[in-house]
């Protein structure tokens, strides 16, 4: 395992800048996930680390080597592609052994290493099959097998689970995490699925439009988002935002409802315009609560109940642990969990 250090990384395609100076430090053995909306430059960044895209500016180091000008094969990385990119006419074993063969390992050596990796991933029964005769989940696993056979310093994953069905994705999430715990290899993992990011990462890098919005541990980002973008991106369902004005230690919404600020009252000035952020699970049903909303839709998932509401003219979501007998159009009142209030500057969106 190696550290990866990315300094002021830039990328432009002709006149179009896609990555605008990114700094990320990855410690040896760390599991780092890049998240962000589609088109924000995640894949581009990963491909630059892999050596598949030229670097327009800045440096990438793996261990203490600057790899900017190294060929992909000399960077000691392995990559798992979103579409797996298995060699169609080779068997699973040949797919897994290809890199070793290229590196000039002996046949016996290749067979031994392939067998060991196949055992780790439970691929033994599939070794003689061609990719066309595998299910999506098995192909995904083979793609991972091909990566781990080489014992690289760094694994690069580009949305490896996005072609799997929901159930398999949950299972593979756990397996990749277990694999990381077992091998201890540094991982740089790209996804646009914030659940994957939250559940798997040691450290999350939130990207937006080619810039870093925030870097930190999953719960740190969840509880202390640096700005409205991060707050809205992480968490499912997403955080509710309300335009508010500070009035007598409360945040007053557009229709006059007031949410008490509690301990945070001292941080803001009377009359200040800001955005109030409330996570769906921090709102609890309470007939005496300060927030009132009109039900638009109720979605029971079995374990939880999602309520889509109109609060002060803005769309909001509440997640309840309990079942709820209510219909569209009903008015409900909610209490706000103390200490879970987020405040953002109205203009810049920065957390206050």
């Amino acid at each position, binding site marked *: 395992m190696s550290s990866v250090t990315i300094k002021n990384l830039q990328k432009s395609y002709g006149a179009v800048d896609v990555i605008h100076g990114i700094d990320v430090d990855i410690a040896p053995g760390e599991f780092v996930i890049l998240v962000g909306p589609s088109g924000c430059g995640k894949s581009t960044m990963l491909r630059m680390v892999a050596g*598949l895209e030229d670097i327009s500016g800045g440096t990438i180091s793996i261990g203490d080597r600057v790899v900017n000008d190294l060929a992909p094969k000399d960077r000691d990385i392995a990559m798992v592609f979103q579409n797996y990119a298995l060699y169609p006419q080779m068997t699973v074993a040949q797919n897994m052994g290809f890199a070793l063969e290229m590196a000039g390992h002996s046949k016996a050596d290749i067979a031994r290493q392939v067998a060991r990796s196949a055992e780790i991933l439970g691929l033994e029964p599939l070794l003689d099959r061609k990719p066309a005769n595998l299910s999506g989940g098995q192909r995904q696993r083979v793609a991972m097998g091909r990566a781990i056979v080489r014992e690289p310093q760094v694994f690069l994953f580009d949305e490896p689970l996005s072609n799997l069905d929901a159930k398999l994705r949950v299972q593979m999430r756990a397996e990749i995490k277990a694999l990381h715990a077992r091998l201890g290899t540094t991982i740089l993992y790209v996804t646009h699925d914030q659940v994957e990011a939250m559940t798997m990462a040691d450290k999350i890098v939130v990207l937006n439009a080619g810039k870093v919005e925030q870097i930190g541990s999953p719960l740190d980002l969840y509880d202390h988002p640096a700005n409205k973008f991060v707050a809205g991106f992480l968490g499912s369902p997403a955080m509710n935002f309300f335009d508010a004005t500070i009035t007598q230690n409360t945040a007053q919404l557009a229709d006059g409802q007031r949410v008490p600020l509690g301990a945070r009252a001292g941080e803001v000035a009377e009359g200040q315009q800001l955005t109030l952020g409330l996570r769906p699970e921090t709102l609890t049903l309470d007939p005496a609560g300060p927030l009132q909303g009109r039900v638009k839709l109720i979605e029971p998932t079995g374990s939880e109940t999602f309520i889509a509401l109109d609060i002060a003219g803005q769309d909001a979501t509440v997640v309840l642990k309990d079942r709820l007998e209510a219909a569209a159009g009903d008015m409900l009142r909610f209490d706000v969990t103390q200490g879970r209030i987020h405040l953002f500057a109205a203009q810049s969106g920065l957390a206050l």
Partner: protein
Amino acid sequence: MKQMIAATRRDPVLMGLWLSLLVFALIWFAPFVFIVFTSLKSSPEIMTSGAFTPPGALVTQNYATAWNRGGFDHAFFNSVFVTVIKVPLGLMIAALSAYALARMKNRWNKLVLLFIVFGTMIPFQVMLAPLFTLVNSLGLVDTYLGLILPYLAFGIPYQIFILHSFFKSVPKELSEAALIDGASHFTTFRRIFLPITLPVMAALLILDFVATWNEFAMALVILQDADKWTLPLGLMSFQGQFSNEYGQLNAAIVMTVLPAVLVYLIFQRYFVSGLTSGAVKG
């Protein structure tokens, strides 16, 4: 498979298509039947029986006579020699060039491809005279090389054009995975692209084999010594000399066509589609 048969039975459009295919096949097949039948009849039988009546007693003598009288041993050897060198060599060059144009970064790629495609657009009849002048000035008239080089020049552009678009359609992640695995361009070509291109290559090989085997105009211009003639030239000369020996003439035709048919039968089994399936998903 069962479902397909069932669908064929029910769907009137498919039925119609199938029927018209059958009609076309018969139209194409009729002369072939005529030729084979005639080649196996004696001269008197040819005069007295209908063209499509099967031969009474099989007369194989026509073949031996035609072979000897027409000097087919030379022509056959020449054709085999030229084709066996030209077809695989041309395909290899075309495949390598197409790979380079499709997968190796170079800002001139588009221009080169355009140039090559442009080359396919000029009818070669227009170029016959200049071609002869060129081959002549190189002192290659009446040589195998003098024929093989123009054959290559005219065959390769089409193949590059077709293979290039095929290589372009191979997911680029496949090349990238190979690059990360440490494969050179040549290894990537040989180990990954070539195997998945087999069906296309087989198709091109058959087409090119038939075209080269039957090529007449260029060979006529470049080969003047009868010893260097290829089969189509030999056949023409035979026809000129023995045009009333129908049995032998048709035997000569069968001998000329047979290798192309054999090559087709051998290579058509590589026309299996879907070789890339399973490489990537989504």
